């Protein structure tokens, strides 16, 4: 076997190994995220319930997004995202300030801002694309 062929086989093998490792890494990440999410659920449910009860009458992010419970949810970071998206999908809600703060993403086209259904759909599509939710 020539050195050239051997090199190609090694390269192909390296690619397969790299892909397998990436896939394994992704599965481990998702499994770890799922375990972490479950352990966060009760804290998130308590904070989200308190936040909704105490800020439901506010219209503006300057009031509702500065509530200590909302800020604590933001502080929970990336692992809390599946729980936020779960609420967003089931009940809607004013989660976008938190989503921006945690993800630094902006999936909503400027023209769709203020259109509640389109905003929610854009964020949920982004979450599926990022494999945060299925």
């Amino acid at each position, binding site marked *: 076997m020539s050195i050239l062929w051997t090199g190609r086989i090694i390269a192909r093998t390296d690619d397969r190994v790299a892909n397998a490792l990436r896939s394994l890494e992704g599965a481990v990440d998702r499994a770890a995220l799922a375990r972490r999410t479950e352990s966060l659920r009760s804290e998130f449910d308590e904070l989200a319930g308190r936040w909704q009860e105490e800020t439901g*009458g506010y219209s503006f992010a300057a009031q509702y997004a500065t509530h200590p419970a909302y800020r604590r949810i933001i502080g929970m970071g990336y692992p809390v995202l599946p729980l936020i998206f779960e609420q967003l999908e089931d009940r809607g809600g004013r989660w976008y300030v938190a989503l921006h703060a945690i993800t630094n993403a902006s999936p909503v086209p400027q023209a769709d801002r203020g259109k509640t259904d389109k*905003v929610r759909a854009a964020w949920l599509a982004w979450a599926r694309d990022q494999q945060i939710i299925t």
Partner: protein
Amino acid sequence: MGDEQRLTLWLPGLELGPFEVTSPRSTSYNCIAWALGNAETWWDPDEYADEAYWPEDVARDVGIETLKSVFSGAGFTECSRGDLEEGLEKIALYAVGAEFTHVARQLASGRWTSKLGEDCDIEHDMDALVSPPGRSNAWRYGEVVAFMQRPRTESSA
């Protein structure tokens, strides 16, 4: 817990006079939209509140002067009183310090209508939403800091 009881817990001033819940809860519109006679848009100057609309030519802050400029753009001018005047539609602007928190619209009957955040619309007395006795002026919506008016039309009656 019924809507009336829940709202009274949140805004104790509602206990001081009669009020009626006039719509179901909704996240589709808020108090600014409702004051403008619209039940389809959520308004908020926060650039990260994706659910919200804000006019491009108005500052993105919660200063009371900013709220006045929103309503100026819809034909309102500042006035000194919130009492009922024939042919005029009035709004009451609420603030904590210099930051706006809420706006209510006067009905042709002289009572007021408000959309309470993502909660219900209610018909109420103007003072029912201000900080109740024993609370600081920074409680919930704070206090009424300005009135604005424009000619009342058929649709705003």
